[in-house]
């Protein structure tokens, strides 16, 4: 009995001291504003459910490439998933756009990772037959496709488009598509600012 009492006292004292010390520390932190630092300032915008991932997409719109963040679910497991999701998101077109430059009805048939770092994307013929845009739109269609894949798929250096399993000369008759796109839509190929402003401003 005596023995038991002394053991409970030895356990009780450190616990009491710990609670007191914790209370003092919490009080100090609260009064000094320390909690405000420790607390998250606002809801995390990037917080995402564990079963989804985000893709950064580049869509041709009104003479520009516009970026859009797209959530895909389930979460991307590997680069094949990333490539497939990015392609499907691209073909779906930008959010809420009534007249997208992306050809309607185009589907992903197959994709292959080349030994040379090139991602080969085999699309259905609608990607070609349903494209009815001008030279700038065609350029931005391919540029947006290339950028959307390069940004989201790890380990690729270039993208090559095939239509119904075949290499084609061009999608819309202005820009070549018979080679990996990196060289055909180079990063330095910018439309002059004046031209963009004019083009974007007179759509009607």
């Amino acid at each position, binding site marked *: 009995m005596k023995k038991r009492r002394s053991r409970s006292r030895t356990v009780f004292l450190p616990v009491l001291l710990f609670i007191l010390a914790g209370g003092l520390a919490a009080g100090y932190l609260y009064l000094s504003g320390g909690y405000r630092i420790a607390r998250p300032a606002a809801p995390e915008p990037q917080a995402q459910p564990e079963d989804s991932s985000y893709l950064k997409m580049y869509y041709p719109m009104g003479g520009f490439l516009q970026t859009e963040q797209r959530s895909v679910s389930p979460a991307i497991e590997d680069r094949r998933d990333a490539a497939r999701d990015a392609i499907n998101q691209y073909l779906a077109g930008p959010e809420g756009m009534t007249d997208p430059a992306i050809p309607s009805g185009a589907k992903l048939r197959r994709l292959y*990772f080349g030994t040379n770092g090139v991602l*080969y994307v085999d699309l259905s013929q609608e990607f070609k037959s349903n494209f*009815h845009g001008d030279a700038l739109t065609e350029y931005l269609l391919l540029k947006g496709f290339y950028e959307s894949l390069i940004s989201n798929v790890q380990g690729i250096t270039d993208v090559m488009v095939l239509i119904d399993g075949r290499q084609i*000369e061009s999608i*819309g008759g202005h820009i070549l598509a018979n080679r990996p796109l990196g060289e055909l839509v180079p990063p330095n190929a910018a*439309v002059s600012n004046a031209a963009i402003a004019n083009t974007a401003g007179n*759509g009607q």
Partner: protein
Amino acid sequence: MVVAIDPGHGGYDEGIVYNSPDGNRISEKNVDLALALAMAADLRAGGAKVFLLRQADRYLGIYQRTRIASARRPALFLSVHLSSTAAFHIYVSLMPQAPVPPTPVPQAPPAPAAGTGAAATNTTAGQTGSLSGSSGQPTPQQQALRNYYQYRFRQRPYLPQSRDFASALEQSVTQAFPGKNVSYMEIPLPILDAMACPAVLLECPGPQFMDYTDPATVSGIARAVAGAIMTYGKE
């Protein structure tokens, strides 16, 4: 002075298609040809020699156009198209400052059975002499590569003149159509890249923004373009 005029699209390649409210289906390929024929008539009336890449509704690929036009050694090249907007677009080729290093090119689309990846050859532009299949005939892919590098950078020395030609075109079109915007752009356009002369691609306003069934529209644009070419040619 031989002026080469390239009416865009043709055959199954219709270009921009517009279904008007009164039930007309307007294809860019037909408007491009009508504009090019009218420009040619005006230029010939002014004493110029004009060569049209197509005079009927037929398909021509980009490389075909390149070969046909280059064979005539034109002093000036103009490709005629329609834009997707209400504006005139005037394009000049955009070229890298130095030749881009040759990149490996796939010899053929990868075999679906491969699963893990596609085979690619190490064929480069510097090896065009060996580009042939086992029968001695180049495969379509090898021919495409040969075409690509044969014409890729021919425009570079002519870029300043192309910009001057674009400027003359811009002025003339702006004067003729004061209500329309005229945009100038430089993007990589293979048909222009391949031309060893001043070369411009002109897009006239889209068919939903301009009535191309009205002959006055076609003749108005043709007159403005022919005027710019004659002025540029004299300078």
